[in-house]
């Protein structure tokens, strides 16, 4: 039973290599309220490790990660 997560903001980070995805997300998360969800879509395979590391460090929560062949989509809940 995969529940649909509604994103309050979507960031298209496709084509951006390290360190841009996390730099952008660390700024973009401030555009939503605590409790809201940011969806970030990246094509950088390093994101699979980087986004969880960023979330743990910044104290935010990744609710769900979707992965297709070339794209990675992270649903990040702003906690702090």
């Amino acid at each position: 039973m995969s529940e649909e997560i509604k994103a309050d903001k979507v960031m298209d980070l496709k084509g951006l290599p390290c360190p841009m995805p996390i730099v952008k997300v660390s700024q973009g998360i401030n555009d939503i309220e605590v409790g809201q969800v940011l969806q970030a879509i990246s094509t950088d395979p390093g994101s699979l490790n980087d986004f969880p590391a960023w979330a743990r460090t910044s104290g935010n929560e990744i609710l769900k990660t979707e992965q297709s062949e070339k794209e990675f989509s992270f649903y990040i809940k702003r906690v702090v």
Partner: protein
Amino acid sequence: MELENIEKQIEELKAQVAALDKKAPENKISMIVFSGDLDKALASFIIATGSVAMGMDVVMFFTFWGTPMMRDKNKHVGGKDLMGNMFGAMLPKGVDQTKLSKINMGGMGTAMMKSRMKKKNVASLPEMISMAGELGVKIYVCEMSMDLMGFKREEMIDYPSIEFCGVAKFLEEAANSKVQLFM
């Protein structure tokens, strides 16, 4: 009597915690950029901007071969002695003139890498530096390196937070940092 003892202990513990708080490193990274190679400078700025994303304060110290990169290619200052002029001419003036530490091949390798970086959307060094500036990365340049190489403050890049210092300033920052790197 017993209660008094406990109160006293609590006071002592409070004082100890406060002292420990003072000693605890800040959420900060201090980096020495000693190398003047394009590759290491790029890595330095990727780590610097990434650190800001991770919520850290960032301080970068440019010393020795890292110093010439911090010059502005469009700024010209006179009044240098012969050696100063020679060093000035031999060393990269700004990041655009830096080279790869390997496979430079008379500049061909560096040019190839730069074009590949562009193709792959990797930010160039000048872009990284301006982003670092916007993100609040602090830059310090070693005063003694500048003096040795005959550089003047007026020929350094325009950057939101650029200052000049010696080893003590670096050590103060490093001692208060969770992460210290030497590039």
